[in-house]
């Protein structure tokens, strides 16, 4: 699902928020119409569809995962690349700095054992080789950060990113291999986000990737293994003006199944009927979940000492038809990102621990939750 970190709010005075808003609410200068909307009937082709789709206004490649070092230290991580099309074409410009796309990146590392959260974000124009997303092969990069699909059938995915948070340098260097086939969300090739033609995206995931690589935190280097989740989504103008934000859940159960759910929250306080989800069986078979097929109940809240926003912090999730009851708890409370260098939006995205039952069977798993639209952007600059 749409995993962009966007807080819809009244017209903001800062430009970064504008970028954030354009991620989903359409591109500037009324040119959204010239970008292609995501419409039903889209035919996916891989590996082509791993590459960039400049004909759509917004696109992102999104990794979240859980890693474990040999010494038992546990990490959660998030690495996202966003592409924002400013205009459909770039005509008559001679400067190489003139750009039709902006690339944004967010990197977060949750030290679950050390109860610390690190994040960094960056932005760049997709010009002069500084940043970009290629259309010929899956290669996406911002300055030194990169995502590259390679190897046999483009199945190996290499991630590289580094940053500095709280004066501590941290980096991830990971290779991913799909443990299960990719999953296309929604119906007829589109994941509808709200009422209206084109208010949708093309959305697919690798819900389970085996991950290997290294994590660096300060002077310490950790060889890590684990599991990751990859989302790739592209579309134009997909959200409605009445939507205030969303709660997204990606759960990997130890029994080999995965569940993706999202609630689109309305400004009026309710939930958009187009909210949906996907249940992925052990063998890769998928079940589309409509709003009435699942329930998400917040049980507790957490107040950010930085943004003073109040986020839900503990949930009960039920899939009544399947008899699945899940209890979802953040591994650490503070996993809030204030992305001053890119989107300028504050959101919560963090690793969670999952326990639950299905009938008499107990369930365990890990996951990631994204909560947007709870905090106003603060201190966004330039």
């Amino acid at each position: 699902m749409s995993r962009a970190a966007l807080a819809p709010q009244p017209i903001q005075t800062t430009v970064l928020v504008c970028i954030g808003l354009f991620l989903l609410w359409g591109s500037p200068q009324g040119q959204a119409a010239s970008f292609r909307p995501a419409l039903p009937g889209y035919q996916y082709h891989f590996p082509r569809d791993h590459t960039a789709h400049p004909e759509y206004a917004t696109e992102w490649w999104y990794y979240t995962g859980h890693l474990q070092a040999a010494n038992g230290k546990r990490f959660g991580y998030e690495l996202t690349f966003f592409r924002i099309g400013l205009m459909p074409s770039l005509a008559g410009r001679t400067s190489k700095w003139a750009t039709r796309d902006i690339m944004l990146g967010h990197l977060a590392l949750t030290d679950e054992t050390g109860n610390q959260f690190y994040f960094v974000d960056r932005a760049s124009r997709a010009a002069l080789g500084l940043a970009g997303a290629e259309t010929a092969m899956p290669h996406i990069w911002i300055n030194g950060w990169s995502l590259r699909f390679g190897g046999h059938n483009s199945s190996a995915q290499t991630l590289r990113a580094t940053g500095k948070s709280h004066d501590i340098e941290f980096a991830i260097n990971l290779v991913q291999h799909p443990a299960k086939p990719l999953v296309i969300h929604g119906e007829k090739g589109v994941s509808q986000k709200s009422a209206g033609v084109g208010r949708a995206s093309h959305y697919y995931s690798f819900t389970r990737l085996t991950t290997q690589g290294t994590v660096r935190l300060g002077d310490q280097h950790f060889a890590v293994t684990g599991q990751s989740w990859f989302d790739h989504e592209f579309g134009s103008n997909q959200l409605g003006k009445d939507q205030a934000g969303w709660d997204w859940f990606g759960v990997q159960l130890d029994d080999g199944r995965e569940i993706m759910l999202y609630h689109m929250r309305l400004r009026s306080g309710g939930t958009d009927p187009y909210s949906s989800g996907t249940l992925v069986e052990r063998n890769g078979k998928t079940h589309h979940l409509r709003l009435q097929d699942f329930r998400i109940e917040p049980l507790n809240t957490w107040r950010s000492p930085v943004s003073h926003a109040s986020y839900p912090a503990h949930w009960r999730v039920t899939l009544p038809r399947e008899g699945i009851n899940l209890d979802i708890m953040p591994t650490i409370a503070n996993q809030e990102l204030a992305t001053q260098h890119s989107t300028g939006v504050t959101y919560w995205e963090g690793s969670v621990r999952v326990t639950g039952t299905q009938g008499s069977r107990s369930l365990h798993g890990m996951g990631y939750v994204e909560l947007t639209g709870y905090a106003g952007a603060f201190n966004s600059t330039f």
Partner: protein
Amino acid sequence: MKFNYATLKSSVRYLLAFLSLRYWLRHRGAFFLATLGVALGLAVFVSVQVANHSVLASFAASLDAISGKANLQIIGGASGLPEEVYTRLKLTPDARIKAAAPVVSRTLYSPTLQTSILIMGVDPFAEIDFRDWEIGGESPPPQASTRGTTPSDQNAQSAFLQFLTGPHTTAISQAMANRYHLSIGSPLQLYVGAERKNFYVVAILPNESSNEAFGGDFTLLDIATAQEALAQSGRLSQIDLIVDEVQLDAVKAALRKNLPADAIVQRPAQRGADVSAMLAAFQLNLSALSCIAIFVGAFLIYNSIAIAVVRRRAEVGILRSFGTGQSQLMRLFLVEAAVIGLVGSIVGMLLGIALAHFTLQAVSTTISALYIAVKAKSLSVPLWLWWGAPLGGTVLSILSALPAAHEAANTPPRAAMLRVTLHQATERFAYPMAMAGVVSLSLAFVLCQPFISGRTVFAGFAAAFLTLSGFALLTPVLTLWGSRVAQVGAGATFGIEGTLAGSYLRRALNRSSLVIAALMVSLAMLIGLSVMVGSFRATVAAWVGGSISADLYVAPARGFAEDPGPGLPREVVQYVTTMPSARFCDTLRGADAEINHQPIYIAANVLPGLVNGERKTRFLETLYGDALTKRAYAQSKIILVSERFKNLLGYRSGQTLTLTTPSGPIAFLIGGVFYDYTPNECLLYMPQTLYRKYWHDYGIDGIAVYLKHDVSTDEVKRELEQRFGAKYQLTLLPNREIRASVFKTFDQTFAVTYALQLIAIIVAAIGIFDTLIALLLERSRELATLRALGASPWQINKMTYIEFVLIGIFAWTIGVAAGLCLAWELIYVINRQFFGWTIQWTLQPDVLFRALVLALLAAIGAGVFPARNATRRNIAATLQVE
């Protein structure tokens, strides 16, 4: 009652204070004039100091605003930096470099706003670590959305995206918006070379630093927009860096290795220090000129106290005979002087700050024309001035009053009652003073010798000061001698009144020599500066006649005054250089460079007129003789430098000059030194083929067209206007216009000098007025006696005016001598040192004549009121004093 010394002492003090107060209250006019003298003298000095400080402060503020948090900068040479330098930095990260941001910047002229604007092209995504622009931080004003089809109709949240994507969008400072009434959607036109570029405002920058940058005349562009607007795609002006402070030097060294040879790596603050050093000499020059007003002001104070002494001579005698101590009396006068000084300097301080608004404008215009583009809009008063000026004014006042106070205190009671003694005192001192004057002049002469004046800029000013002081010290003795001659001469011509006038001049030597000295100093200044400026103009005229030889000059809109950027459009160059009406053309490409922090201007030209003799360049020295040197230049074997270049940078013909070019450091042979008076950087002529070879720059900034003899310049001008006028903004200057424009620039450069000179003369005029009152006052008893003996008021008036005319003539005579000495120092010492120019000495007699008229007018004009006063005095009352 028991005798109490303390009581007596305090009562004496009380008495003295009372007497002082009563005197000054009664002579409010005298107090006013004395304080005005101090105030004006100091005001000029203060205004120059404030202007100097404000220019530097605003440059520093502008630099801070533009540099943001950068602690290191890579600054491109004349043609900028290739943008690959930046991408290489970004894509091969060095952990020591925390952030990097590209900048494209230039000052451009806006014809619609009638001013130059600093434009800065940035990559907003790289800016975040450096500068806080808040583009789009300001919502558009409500009316913007009702204006139909303007770009401002766009949603407020898209301001930034318009800024980023629109090829003609800009964000302007709040100060600029206020100053020129611009709002979102307003158009903004700028000249880039010969092209008019149209932009519109999409955002107003709310941050304070954009108001500081270039005095607020600041426009921010997206880097792509800036590159395209400046026709500078692929090039950056500079790269800002945030580098680990500890590793800064190591990073600096590492960076240098991979940069074009003409790029500089330095701290932003270094630029401020360089500019400050560059302007130091110019600012010192102004300070020195402003001191002249203080110098004249000091005369006024001496004068006022002396008058006060004279007027209270009887009082002083009485006090002395009552046993008032000498030191008490002396203190009394010094305290009075201190009060005058303090009040005057406080008024002067305030007046100076008010005056600084004008001086600042003049100073920053001159600096922008001569050195570097600065815009100083707000005044910044240096902290030391707040206490330094009042203290200095007070101390100066006390020092100026010292002779008169000493005189008063040391006169025996009996003599104090008689008014003639003071004159005798001065007559007694006239010879020692003259000796001091001779010493002072000799010292000035020594200071002017190249072995001293070549070393320090102070020598020239010290010499000028000593010259004026020397002549001032010589004034009593010259007046003494002169009045003897005048007494005879005037007696023969005007009868008894003439004889008396001449004799008074001598007998009132203290007063008359003072007023003559004050007037003399002003006249000397006037003559000195006029002769210097006149000589300079004549020299420039001769130079312009020789070197501006083409019939028509074609340049981009702003001529050569602004950074021309891309220069003339290719089709214009192509057409003009091949049009049939032209016999031949010279083309010029200019580039700025710096040698030892001294800005130089490289003029890459062909100079065909040099070889065929149509351009009469005069050489100071050549390597192979004039003819062969010209040929060597035509063959691109040598470069030529201006005299200013030689004098300021110390290069001679025959030496090689190494310039850092984009192709690395290259040594060029200097084949000759030519005379040049462009009020600009040090000039260097480089054969265009050499320039193109090493700079890889094929642009053309200007064309000098030599037309066929039967072709009318105006017709060609019209034709070019018709052909290109709609498309490009060209400056087409026929020969006579470019000559006129040279003089216009010249006069602008000297505007500050003219203003300072005017103020010095006003101060002197006040002094003369003041002194003449004293002169007559002292003599009131004699005048009354003459009236009692039967002299008519007409006779008294005649005598007084003859005396004033004599004063004028004396002051003028000595002033001419002092003025010519001053002119010599200005031309051969001070100017050469500051500007590196040889000015050919030209003396127009009308300068001396005008000074004479002025001297007479000053003496007579200032004398009208005191003369009338003298004849109206009550004879009986005046005589009764004795």
